[in-house]
């Protein structure tokens, strides 16, 4: 396992607030989306937010027991905790309906959207997209504003170099320089994020499979595609 991964897990175990906030930022939206999917219309957005917070709270008490060397993905483990949080919520609701838990609740998982809480490929893809989004966010934070805007307009928005140059009032060679600078920064941040949040060899290989280790043109294309998938699944809003 990568050193960054172990140090991050150590930070989580040491109750480092910044590490927990980062975890919340990266995986919170995916977690909420999955809970919403399982809820299948039975839980509202506010409840989902509460449940995702409960999940992280439960994670904080059980992080000591997480052993990455056993080959279990962190995302899978996180999902199992979320599933239990949702089960508890539904049991509590059932008990309330029956009259404050006078009778034991029957654990019925039919409400989980028909998938029974199993980890599906879509969830894993979302987790990967969340990592890429986190890398983009970090690159945006560490890059020069102008450079990242050029990258955003050129790659993420799919505008032509001439158009971007015209809008920003600079020459096309300047656009190319900004573009290569942002791309280099993004590659670096992506490596960092993948190394931090990947606990198994399959997770480490995901970036390469998605075309993020190829040349510049393919890299940009892959980033744009992943980013559009990630941003098109906005959290449900009320």
């Amino acid at each position, binding site marked *: 396992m990568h050193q960054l991964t172990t140090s991050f897990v150590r930070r989580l175990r040491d109750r480092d607030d910044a590490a927990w906030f980062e975890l919340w930022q990266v995986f919170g939206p995916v977690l909420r989306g999955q809970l919403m999917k399982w809820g299948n219309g039975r839980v509202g957005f506010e409840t989902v937010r509460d449940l995702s917070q409960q999940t992280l709270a439960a994670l904080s008490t059980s992080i000591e027991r997480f052993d990455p060397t056993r080959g279990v993905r962190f995302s899978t483990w996180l999902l199992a905790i979320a599933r239990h949080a949702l089960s508890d919520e539904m049991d509590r609701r059932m008990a309330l309906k029956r009259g404050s838990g006078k009778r034991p609740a029957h654990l019925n998982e039919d409400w989980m959207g028909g998938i029974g809480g199993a980890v599906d490929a879509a969830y894993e893809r979302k987790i990967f997209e969340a990592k890429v989004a986190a890398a*983009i966010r970090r690159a945006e934070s560490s890059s020069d504003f102008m450079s990242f805007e050029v990258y955003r307009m050129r790659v993420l928005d799919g505008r032509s170099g001439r158009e971007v140059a015209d809008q*920003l*009032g600079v020459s096309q060679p300047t656009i190319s320089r900004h573009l290569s600078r942002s791309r280099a920064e993004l590659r670096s941040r992506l490596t960092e994020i993948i190394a931090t949040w990947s606990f198994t060899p399959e997770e480490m290989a995901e970036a390469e499979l998605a075309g993020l280790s190829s040349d510049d043109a393919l890299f940009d294309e892959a980033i744009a595609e992943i980013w559009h998938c990630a*941003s098109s699944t*906005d959290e449900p809003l009320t």
Partner: protein
Amino acid sequence: MARIFIIMAIVLGCLIGAAAIGVLLRHLLAPILSGILRVVQFIGRVVIELVADLMTACWNVIVTVLTLPILLIMLLLGRWEAAGRTMSRIGDRFRTVGRRVVGVVTRPAGVASPPRRTPKRTQKKGRRSGGAFPGWRVVGSLESGGSGAVMHIAEPAEGAPADAPDRVVIKCFDLKDGSPLGQMIRESRALDGAKRLGLVIEHDHDEQRFWYIMPFIPGSHLGETLGPLHATGHGLSPQSLLDVLGWSRDLLTTLHGYHASGFWHKDVKPENIITNESGAHLVDLGLVTPLQSAMTLTTHGTEYFRDPELVRQALRGAKVSEVDGARFDIYSAGAVLYYMVEGTFPAHGNLSHFDREHGDAVRWVVRRAMADYNQRYATAADMLADLQYLASSTDVRAVRPADLPSMTGAAVPPSPPPRPAANVPGQHGQHGQHGRPNLEVTDWWSGSYRVNDAVAGAPNLPDAFTQARQARQARLAARAAERQRRREARRARMGGFVAAVVGFAVLVTSYFLVVGVGSDWSTPDAPPVVASIPPGYGNVVLVNDHPRRLEAATAVSAALRDSGWAPTADAAIEASFRRTVPTTSLDGAELAAMAAPVLATHELTAAAIIQASADDPDGVDVVLVRGDGSERYRLPELDAEPVIQSTP
């Protein structure tokens, strides 16, 4: 010349006519069509929504009927609470449908009904009425936020200040109502700043309660205002976009005032922005914090509108004075602008996707405001300059980011004064920021003085009373301006109608004028009618072009003979004459010159070309051509042709 005049008159008439028809369509037909469309739209909406609501009502009846046995069982088993909840749900269903049915009829077509920020006359069940507030009479309440306080609407009563505004908001924390003490202490800390900004009129407390009084700003909050603007689902219209930029500009102006006075709002979000005809107003000062506060930074705020960096710094345990709170407000202002133009929350922060088309410059401003802490606009004034540029442009969508003042380095509004550096001893006690006001006595005899409390460059913020008075005056002025605008629009419509009628009249007149004049001018100079041809002698050959050939030849021959001429109708000579002289296209001396050789050949004195008059087919014109010239005469018109009746 005459023809040119005619053409010009026709062109002029057409232009005036086209303009008149345009004005007529614009001012007469368009409103009529629009009215018809509205009526159809209204009827359609009423029918559709009424049918939908009636179906919902039917469904509710079915559900109620099915639920009744369960309800009875609950009652029999003594499950009063569950039965009460069920009955309450049924009641809610019918109340909702009833409200919708009433709303369908009373609401204008195509307009959603945004809830207004108006006081409710009733209090929430279980809430205290708020008790008495000396000098104020409570007339209603507003929805409470998350602070645990009750928001009362009050009007001045006996003992109120003389220049008190018409209405105020009283935010009251009551320990008996469960208001958290921590929140009360936090808000009381913000009062100093709020008073300095003129947001608070007065505050007081007793053993149980703590309250403060603010001017009431009527209107609806931004979330409610934006609903109808985004109702189409295709983004904002150009006018709505300008309105939104104007509100954002108002927000930034207010924030600039906060920052210049040494405070930051910390809770900028759509629910805290009230819009009305006078613009956008930032309310709720529950989290207003001095920029140089020695307190630890907290994570208070609202998700999506709170800078993640604020959370990071708060988790790090940073002090407020160690960060630039103004930048967090700028982030929130950018998030609010995103919310306004997109109609949804910025779920991905600065990387949130833009689905609507508003032009690159608007996107640039949002992204610059929500950029990383160190890379966003340094001051609210910088963002304000960009927004002012956008709001003043004729086509916002056409503005390039490169044109914005923050990119070009153009002049920007005055930046706030430099704030004292963090943790620098001696700075906190200076007047104008955190110390007592500096009074300068202007007249020792009368004791009058003035306050030298203003920091150079800081906005001269009036007190709360003045602000409320100014707001009321602004409202009245806005209403008067609106009335004046409507009056002018009415006048313009009336003027347009009159112009249309006059134009139409001009069109008709010019048409008849053109037709009349054209017919007069298009007619060649008609010769005077003569009883007989002037006397002469010699042989005259008849060249007959008249449609009533025989009658015309007889009449002309008679007239010639009466005048001493010797007419002859020799077909060979006539044919020879026609071969040499084009009788229909020549006139005057030219005709005479061409006819002279023919006349000499056949030893004729003259030729008489007989034609029908141009304006009268029965008229007889005679062109008498001699070797030295030609003259045209008009003989009396021929008798009408006899009607030949068939015999059985």
